[in-house]
């Protein structure tokens, strides 16, 4: 890609970033009395068009959900249209592929319990590189094997780990085998695509390795909480983390306490976990740690805004910021429907 194209893309992305809702606007939304007021307020933001088109089909929380999905889907499409060049698009698609993985997992889970195709279709994320026609065709397959076969017939790369592990799945009758195979394939594949020396690849690789660390720490915490056998623990870790390799993760699991994990993480980038209140440590409330880890990852992603303007950094940073904004709006809207107290609602929001 030539720098002129980046100039245009970055100018557009910076303009889009300036339109993201700031803390004050989100707090104003959270302060609204009910969902109707939240929707009215959203109509005065860049979500106006999405809300208007959603309100034709839906009302209430369904309207907000639909509008947010539309907004996310449009944003991805727009960002991809800015980014020209095969290599850069491949790198951008790594970010989108996580939704493909989630969607394939959902289809496999649905087929495993013989859920109707329309039910599965409703549970798919409106993002990812796989188009709607592919997803519809996959949901219409008879069973797990037929889904994998169709993926293989169409030459979709996710069929490889699934075909490799299908025998094990058939023997154990445990879908988790296929899910882990897919997850591991995603990260291995993504790291191999971003293995080069270019600045863009470095950015993608940096985010991926951080994400692997964060995902692995979350797994360690859940393994400890549910007292999973140490011999089994290694199976659930993804290789390729920035600071934590499988041996280190096994050592973390071996501490058998969350307190122990926090102590072992001293000196790493993840020692901020020590700031999680003691009551959550005692209660083994993993979601509190996950929120800290996700916020850390978000900080890292938003830090990309200060990176080289003539690179993919801004696009990646913007996508993370947009995802966070959508998550915050969804939290506000859903909490308003359930009349969750404002204090509790504010605790769930992530401001960076």
């Amino acid at each position: 890609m030539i720098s002129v194209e980046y100039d245009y893309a970055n100018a557009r992305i910076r303009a889009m970033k300036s339109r993201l809702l700031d803390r004050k606007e989100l707090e104003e939304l959270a302060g609204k009395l009910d969902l109707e007021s939240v929707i009215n307020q959203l109509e005065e933001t860049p979500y106006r068009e999405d809300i208007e088109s959603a309100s034709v089909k839906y009302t209430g929380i369904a309207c907000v959900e639909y509008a947010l999905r539309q907004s996310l889907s449009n944003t991805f499409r727009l960002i991809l249209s800015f980014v020209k060049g095969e290599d850069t698009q491949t790198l951008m698609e790594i970010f989108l592929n996580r939704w493909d993985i989630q969607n394939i997992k959902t289809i496999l889970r649905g087929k495993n319990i013989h859920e109707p195709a329309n039910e599965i279709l409703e549970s798919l994320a409106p993002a990812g590189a796989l188009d709607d026609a592919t997803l519809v065709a996959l949901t219409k397959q008879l069973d797990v094997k037929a889904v994998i076969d169709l993926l293989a017939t169409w030459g979709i790369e996710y069929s490889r780990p699934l075909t490799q592990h299908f025998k094990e799945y058939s023997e154990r009758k445990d879908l988790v085998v296929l899910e882990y195979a897919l997850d591991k394939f995603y990260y291995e594949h993504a790291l191999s695509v971003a293995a080069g020396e270019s600045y863009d690849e470095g950015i993608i690789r940096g985010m991926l390795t951080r994400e692997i660390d964060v995902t692995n720490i979350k797994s360690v915490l859940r393994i400890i909480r549910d007292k999973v056998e140490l011999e089994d623990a290694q199976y659930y870790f993804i290789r390729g983390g920035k600071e934590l390799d499988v041996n280190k993760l096994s050592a973390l699991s071996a501490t058998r306490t969350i307190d122990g994990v926090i102590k072992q993480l001293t000196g790493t980038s993840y020692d901020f976990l020590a700031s999680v209140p003691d009551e959550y440590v005692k209660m083994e409330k993993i979601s509190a740690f996950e929120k800290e880890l996700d916020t850390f990852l978000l900080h890292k992603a938003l830090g990309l805004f200060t990176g080289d303007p003539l690179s993919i950094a801004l696009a990646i940073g913007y996508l993370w910021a947009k995802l966070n904004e959508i998550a915050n709006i969804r939290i506000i809207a859903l909490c308003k429907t359930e009349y969750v107290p404002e204090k509790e609602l504010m605790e769930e929001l992530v401001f960076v």
Partner: protein
Amino acid sequence: MEQVHPTRMELIKKNGQIKLAEQGRDLLRQKMDALIQEFFHIMISVSKSREELDIAAIAAQRSLCVAEAVDDLTALKSASFATKRALTLDIRGKNIMGVPVPLVERKTVTKSVLERGYSMIGTSGRIDETAERYETELDLIIGLAETETSLRRLGDEIQMNRRRVNALEQVLIPELKRQAKYIKIAIGEREREDLYRLKKVKKIIEQNAKKKKQTAASVAAA
């Protein structure tokens, strides 16, 4: 009143029936007292479990709302597909004062993250916490199903017993007593009639004897 034979045998029979009915009533009352005691004993645990269930349900609902909000509805629905749906329970029976009540196997539904059927990657601890809260709620529902069914069956039995006691006390025993009274009155009446008849016969015999005497005297005089 039902057709009764006002005989002494019938009276003895009725008195026997009254005694049996009163014994039955007393036994049913004793059974009812025992059932009521058991009923209240179970009711205390039911109301306690109900309160626990209400709290657990509110916590689970709140947790689900937050998980839906933070993790996205699609991720949550996807995770729900992965969880196994069948739940097999072993239900046996036991007797409380002759009332058959179910005995549900106390099987804990709470699962570990590995048993829920979804991988840890792509799902969050928040989803685990929500699942765990609903599993706790399900545990309480299973426990409550046993005690509430027992309570309902005991309640039905108490009601049926009360109806039986009332039927004995207010219909059968008074009816038997009325019949016995009627027989007694009828027998007394008959005895009085017999006495009067005997007196009358005696009087007639005496009059006849007197007439015969007078006739004999007049014949002799003539």
